[in-house]
């Protein structure tokens, strides 16, 4: 038996658990969703095994399309803000001395130590009409009506940016830290200003990181429903809430499945584009 052959066998064994996990808990459930989306709903939840296109036709109803577009808008805004805020932070961490980098990265990860729900509730405490921010305003002499910060689209975007920004920082940091420091010196030697070096060299080289972070935030945001529920006061409805209500209140699993598959398809397309961007960047590297 050649060494290469033994190696292959070993990696097959090592891959098996992860692969089996993905197959059982990701691929098979997704296929189930796909199958469910083509059958009719049972009278009390569940399904009747009769083939139909109706669920997809319904998904194109203007009502549901408008919810999908609104979700895309909210997720898009969250992505833009997360990148705008996350990039400088990632840049600062990448340029910091090595020893401090570990501390900064640790601080970025720190919020993950507490539960998503609790972190989101904390925003309710901060933003509500009797909350910390309104109290502070009153202390500073503001005497008008308390400002309504909560239960708006803006508060949902804020919650999403807050919760997902670590992913952006980590993704951009990892692509920035892979850039060879000598490029800075070379660029300087050739007479480029700091800004020009950043714009012409560093920024293009960090595009894969931006793309990865942005896709992460967008995909996680567009499917999110807890944030819209809590910070939107159920006044803001995203496609995740719609799917939730189809499965749980309307007892319409097939329609919920069709909507889910719609969402899965969007995510797949985005991940595909991101992979293309990453590959092009890789290929473009000397």
């Amino acid at each position, binding site marked *: 038996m050649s060494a290469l052959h033994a190696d292959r066998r070993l990696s097959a064994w090592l891959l*098996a658990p992860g692969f089996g996990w993905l197959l059982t808990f990701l691929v098979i459930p997704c296929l189930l969703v796909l199958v469910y989306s083509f059958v009719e709903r049972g009278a009390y939840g*569940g399904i009747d095994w009769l083939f139909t296109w109706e669920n997809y036709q319904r998904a194109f109803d203007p009502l549901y399309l408008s919810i999908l577009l609104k979700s895309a808008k909210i997720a898009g805004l969250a992505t833009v803000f997360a990148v705008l805020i996350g990039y400088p932070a990632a840049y600062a961490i990448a340029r910091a001395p090595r020893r401090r980098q570990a501390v900064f990265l640790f601080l970025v990860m720190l919020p993950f130590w507490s539960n998503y729900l609790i972190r989101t509730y904390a925003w309710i405490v901060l933003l509500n009409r*009797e909350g910390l921010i309104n109290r502070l305003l009153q202390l500073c002499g503001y005497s008008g009506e308390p400002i309504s910060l909560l239960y708006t689209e803006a508060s949902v975007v804020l919650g999403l940016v807050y919760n997902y920004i670590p992913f952006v920082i980590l993704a951009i940091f990892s692509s920035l830290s892979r850039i060879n420091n000598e490029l800075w010196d070379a660029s300087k030697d050739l007479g480029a200003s700091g800004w020009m070096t950043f714009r012409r060299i560093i920024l293009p080289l960090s595009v894969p990181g931006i793309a990865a972070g942005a896709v992460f935030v967008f995909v996680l945001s567009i499917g999110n429903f807890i944030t819209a529920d809590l910070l939107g*006061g*159920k006044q803001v409805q995203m496609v995740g809430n719609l799917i939730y209500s189809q499965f749980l*209140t*309307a*007892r319409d699993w097939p329609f919920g499945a069709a909507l889910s598959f719609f969402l899965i398809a969007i995510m797949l397309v985005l991940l595909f584009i991101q992979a293309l961007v990453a590959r092009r960047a890789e290929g473009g590297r000397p």
Partner: protein
Amino acid sequence: MRKLKDVLCVGLAVSLAIATQAASAKDMVISIWDGYMAPDALDKFKAASGVDVDKALHATNEEIMGKLMASGGEGYDVVFVSSPFAEVLHKQGLLADIDPVKVPNLKNLYPEATHLEYDPGNHFSVPYTWGTTGICYRTDKVSPAPQSWNDLLNPSDALKGKVTMLATDRWMLGAGFLAKGWSVNDSDPGQIAAVRDQLIATKKRILAFDDTTFYSKLASGESLMAHAWDGWCNYGTQANAAIKFVVPKEGSDLWVDTMVVLKSSKHQDEAFKFVNFMLAKENHVWVAENILYKIPNQAAMAGLSADLLKQYPNLTIAPGDLVKMEQLRDLGGTTQKAYTRAVTEIMAAQN
């Protein structure tokens, strides 16, 4: 490859063994909302009957319905659900007939609670708690006091942005139906559309739709008036005595949470024993004293202290008055679909 198959099979067998062991270590399984029974009830039941009960939790009716529908009722012996859902389970043939001989404590129930429209004679369900829906408000900040569902749906300028409404479809739309003098089980498409339009207008004048924290919003002053279940309003009263509950003049709904026994249960005798245990005066009274819900148990309600009743006046709504309210019924597929669509349209409407 054979080896791999062997390993996989052994792995599967071991995990199944662990999983089933966890499930079968107990004699029977119930599913209930968190905090809906005394923390020591199951220990007491074990001491009294020798039956070891595993308690599963569900957060919503829909959640447990999903589980029961997926498994055909397998895996659970006794389940706590609201009456329309008990009705569905019955229509699906998943429920065992309640054997009155094995549940002698049914005699503790108010006569009114044994003739409920969805299950007269308690053939497949036993009422556990009941109550109504209305307006919970700050008596110190809201004047004049709300009297009508329209006070909630069309908040005055003083209350604009300081009102919350229930988010669950039946109650959200129910408030609209009741305001117009229609049934809470209305299935007329034109009337559903009219209520939808009203609620889209309402949405612009309220703070939020809220099922779970409306009483703390009232207590903190973030809101001043809330569409609320009577029992939950009591939590507000507990935090701030100025918070009171009122049933609007147009009337309201009667909601009932029930205990049901699954037909597929392999422990039906124990299940009936458990239901009987929960109906015992000294066990059932815990619910009224601690969760502040009305219970349909005459013997237990008679034992409540005068102080408690004075502090939470809605506990004294008489069973005769409660059953005058309209009961929420299962709507069936088409109307349920229309309700969900109406709620989706309300939620999707631009503010």
